[in-house]
């Protein structure tokens, strides 16, 4: 079941000049939301923004019926959203997409930049299911690191920064945690990073789940704009994905 409902903004936390976290209150009881699912958020107040924006669910607080969205300002739509104030109403279509398939006893989560957004809620779900996880976050510098305390409370956190201001200096692909054995890898971030990780996973014969970000008009399966080329032909990122096994994707 998918819903089209209003939420109330309860927090708008600035991480960097182009990154912010919206915490949204649902006035009813939240339905079941899977890690890796996303919402389509209506952007109001800018006449140049016509379509909704698909945004990953960063975290879910089932007790409080709140969800968090980590948003990077990339254009007019996300810029408009960054102006939301506490008490404002936003309309979401949710929950959308397939979400992560949870497998194994020990798994590795790898996130790059704001692409890491869905991994926090995944780490939370894994902990609830008593699945041991390591999480490797790659970002530009320490200022671009978000939700660090939460990650630490849920998983073994490893960090790689481009300038070495926190954790390993370098890219996630050179982190030694990759040498260890895992039952699955969950990866979200820039496409080149996901491709590199998926290549590594293939060599080690580990299933690798990646989260794709495609332009979409609707987000719930009808516009057919967000297709991705898979071994079984064109599939819609919004309903068959956004999580795919990398081995299913033609381009990976």
């Amino acid at each position, binding site marked *: *079941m*998918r*819903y*089209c409902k209003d939420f109330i903004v309860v927090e708008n936390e600035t991480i960097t000049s182009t990154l912010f976290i919206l915490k949204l209150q649902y006035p009813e009881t939240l339905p079941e939301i899977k890690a890796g699912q996303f919402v389509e958020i*209506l952007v109001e107040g800018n*006449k*140049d*923004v*016509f*379509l*909704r924006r698909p945004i990953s669910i960063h975290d879910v607080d089932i007790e409080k019926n709140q969800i968090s969205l980590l948003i990077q300002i990339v254009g007019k739509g996300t810029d408009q959203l960054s102006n939301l104030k506490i008490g404002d109403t936003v309309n979401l*279509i949710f929950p959308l997409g397939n979400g992560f398939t949870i497998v194994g006893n020990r798994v590795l989560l790898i996130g790059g930049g704001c692409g890491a957004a869905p991994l926090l809620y995944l780490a939370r779900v894994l902990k609830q299911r008593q699945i041991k996880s390591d999480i490797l976050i790659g970002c530009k510098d320490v200022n671009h690191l978000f939700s660090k305390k939460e990650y630490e409370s849920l998983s073994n956190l490893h960090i790689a920064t481009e300038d070495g201001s926190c954790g390993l200096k370098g890219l996630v692909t050179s982190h030694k945690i990759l040498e260890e054995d895992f039952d699955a890898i969950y990866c979200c971030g820039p496409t080149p990073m996901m491709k590199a990780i998926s290549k590594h996973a293939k060599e080690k014969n580990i299933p690798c789940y990646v989260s794709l970000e*495609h*332009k*979409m*008009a*609707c987000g*719930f*399966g*009808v*516009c*057919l*704009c*967000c*297709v*991705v*080329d898979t071994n079984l*032909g*064109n599939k819609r990122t919004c309903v068959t994905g956004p999580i795919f096994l990398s081995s299913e994707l033609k381009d990976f």
Partner: protein
Amino acid sequence: MNNADKRLEVTIKDMVLRNPVMTASGTFGYGYDFEDFMSLESLGGIVVKATTGGNREGNAYPRMAETSSGMLNAVGLQNKGVDYFCNTLYNKIKDINTNMIVNVSGSSVEEYVEVAEKINELKNIPGIELNISCPNVKQGGMAFGTDPKMAAEVVKAVRKVYNKTLIVKLSPNVTSIVEIAKSAEGEGADSLSLINTLLGMAVDTEKRKPLLSTVTGGLSGPAIKPVALRCVWQVAKQTKLPLIGIGGIMNARDAIEFILVGATAIEVGTANFINPAISQEIVYGISQYLDRHNIKNIADIRGII
């Protein structure tokens, strides 16, 4: 839901619509995709995704670009073909309690005829919308809708094999839409729906490349509503057929505008992506409009401009 508002009932040939609000092909899936958000029975009709003779994978990604007050798409008639529709999809939609109309497309007259002939056998499909106006396929599609002779040829051929309500969907990408409309009317079309998308393009200045894989695509949304209204108004003056107005309808007021210029019914398209319950809300909004103006029947305001 105000299903019982008899003032809204309209007729298109043999099809009785409980209200003039339909949904446009390619924006409403196969109907059931919207069940979570609204009551499908509240609608006058649903036009499902274009169906062609064989399986089509459609165009390469990217297929969509947002524009000012609208969007471009270049989906390219992705569908699994008419046999899959008849054997699988039909069973999933045949009990939806509204007029389920199939949008029929093809690359040749023979393909249109093949699809129409097979759909004709499906008991719970009261009509087809002949898509001679898709701008996103290399062969066929819009080619049939931009040449009056080709339009006449395909409508004539389909009319021979199809005996239920035949709607022909017109392209705005022509010098005279009236000429194409008359061709279709002359060969036995029962109704015309207009307009399909306007051919357009968008450019990424950073990458210095087109935003669509196909370079050009079809523009939809409120940006095209003035063009659509003009087309409906022109065709309404020159043909006797019931018209279905399409193009940028976002609310009940937009729908009423189309009815005022001569449309019997309307199709809601791109708005479904932004508010998946909008078509049902438009039905309610039209009722309220009739209340507010003390209008006894929707027909009383049809084509008064």
